[in-house]
């Protein structure tokens, strides 16, 4: 493994530890006493104390934090004796609401969120690159101005509005699509597509617009580079100049942005999932915030942080493959 990868992974772990710390700090500082919450209506002070003891809430902050972090890697045990609950690694605690293990809740919903993210990513990447390239090739023409107008419009429509409009038109009025539900691909590929296509579009539109702008700007920038002039001076035909000398430099920065956007979304598209009522990680997070279900909020936050860190490392690795200047000690 190259040295730079080791440093990246190490610093990634450092970042995650900090994310952990801050999430925990917020949890610790803001949470109304979880023991009271768990205890419910018919509660006695003794029961509350017992719950506190089981959760380790009577311990000092750093001890609690330490147990939390260790729990993620090695698992932990809540309580003692006969009532002890074994929480296997990676242990993110239990939901205050449902008493389910947070890890299990996330794992259960992750495939749905990933499906939405992957589908949307494919869509916005295709639309963004195609739109941006077309706009750049036809710079200054009607098509270019039309695309620009379209992207600005798409960027300014909030996606919950778009979701409701689409749902009204496509589902209620035209009845072309069902109300989105999480259908597994293996069960019925056709239904799977019909159910997910609206969330994909809603999530992709904003990104597609941004990527169109970005691609257009990058391509036009690169076309002004001296090495493009050199390529023409060598007598290369325009398609080759574009393909070889303009596209690769122009699209490289997009890899970075895509990596991070995509990684961030894998952990759940909060608004899209909530609007369509699709039970993914994002909706779970939104619901947990409303119910003050701290362990779940923390779990999702950590997951998002983890994905972004991993996404960054992947981007770095990909970057070394496409940009020779980044190859360290090559």
């Amino acid at each position, binding site marked *: 493994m190259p040295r730079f990868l080791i440093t990246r992974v190490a610093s990634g772990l450092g970042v995650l530890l900090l994310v952990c710390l801050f999430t925990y700090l917020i949890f610790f500082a803001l949470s109304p006493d979880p023991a009271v919450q768990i205890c419910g209506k018919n509660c006695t002070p003794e029961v509350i104390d017992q719950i506190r003891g089981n959760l380790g809430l009577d311990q000092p902050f750093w001890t609690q934090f330490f147990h939390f972090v260790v729990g993620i890697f090695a698992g932990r045990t809540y309580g003692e004796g006969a009532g002890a609950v074994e929480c296997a690694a990676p242990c993110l605690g239990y939901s205050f609401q449902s008493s389910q293990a947070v890890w299990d809740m996330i794992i259960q919903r992750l495939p749905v969120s990933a499906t939405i993210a992957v589908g949307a990513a494919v869509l916005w990447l295709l639309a963004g690159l195609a739109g941006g390239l077309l706009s750049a090739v036809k710079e200054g023409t009607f098509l270019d101005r039309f695309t620009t107008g379209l992207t600005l419009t798409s960027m300014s429509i909030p996606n919950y509005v778009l979701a409701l409009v689409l749902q009204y038109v496509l589902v209620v009025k035209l009845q072309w699509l069902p109300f989105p539900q999480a259908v597994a691909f293996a069960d019925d590929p056709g239904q799977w597509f019909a159910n997910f296509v609206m969330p994909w579009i809603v999530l992709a539109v904003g990104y597609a617009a941004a990527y169109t702008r970005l691609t257009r700007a990058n391509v036009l920038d690169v076309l002004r*580079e*001296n*090495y493009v*002039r*050199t*390529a*023409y*001076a*060598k*007598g*290369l*035909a*325009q398609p*080759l100049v574009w393909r*070889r*000398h303009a596209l*690769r*430099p122009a699209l*490289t920065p997009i890899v970075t942005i895509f990596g991070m956007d995509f990684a961030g979304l894998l952990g759940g598209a909060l608004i899209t999932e909530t609007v369509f009522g699709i039970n993914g990680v994002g909706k779970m997070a939104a619901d947990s915030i409303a119910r003050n279900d701290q362990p779940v909020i923390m779990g999702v936050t950590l997951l998002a942080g983890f994905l972004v860190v991993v996404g960054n490392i992947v981007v770095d690795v990909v970057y070394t493959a*496409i*940009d*020779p*200047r980044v190859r360290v000690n090559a």
Partner: protein
Amino acid sequence: MTLLQVRDLTVTFPTPRGPLDAVRSLDLDLEPGGALGIVGESGSGKSMTSLAIMGLQPRAAQRTGSVRLHDQELVGLSEAELRRVRGDRIAMVFQDPLSSLNPYYTVGLQIEEAYRAHRPGTTRRVARRVAVEALERVHIRDAARRVDHYPHQFSGGMRQRVMIAMALSTEPELLIADEPTTALDVTVQAQILDLLQEIRRETGTGLVLITHDLAVVSEVTDHIVVMKDGVCVERGPVEQIFTDPRHAYTQALLDAVPRIDDEIGELRAVTPGAAGDVGQRNEQNGGAA
């Protein structure tokens, strides 16, 4: 027979304040194997001249007049016909070798593609051998290994050698070097000029050298054209220009060359207002339209 004959070359840009001539009514002549220097300060139109010879002026610009390479007229050729001339019969070396080479590809690939663009059907192996030989010709040591390196792995002078190697790989009749040494330090500058001289001697390639540096042209070229505001103000053999400049501007350029025995004084402008904006310049020239 003349290698390059430019007559009445004019490059016009549309501007909100009317058409502007970046180059106006320029005549150039170069014998086979000869070396011509085009001298002038920034904005004098010398770089635009070099681009216009190859038909590489910006899309917005209009090129009129005549550019003849041997007996082929280049003005009015289609893009496809121009492409056959570019890189093959006329090759170009630019000022900043770092930004003029694509950072994403090895120098070998960039030389190969220049060669293969004009020799369809050349295999990669042959093209690669050409690239290695081209690098050897410009005295890059260990060329067989260096051919697989990227531009950022070369020093400034070496990069300019790569540019020259690339330009020469097709054995062009004419090499246009636009400020080839400006981005380099003085000792490297001298090496590159020596290299250009050597290549000219060995291959008989005609050379148009564009520079703001009179010391550079005096070393390499035999004829000089002095440009100012897109117009030729003086032309002649190097010795004549240096010993007996006719035009005040040429004199001013000569005076601007710093001398080691000069007393230390303030920097002087070559001509008052010479670097003013283009609109002002055209008004000075009588409207240019």
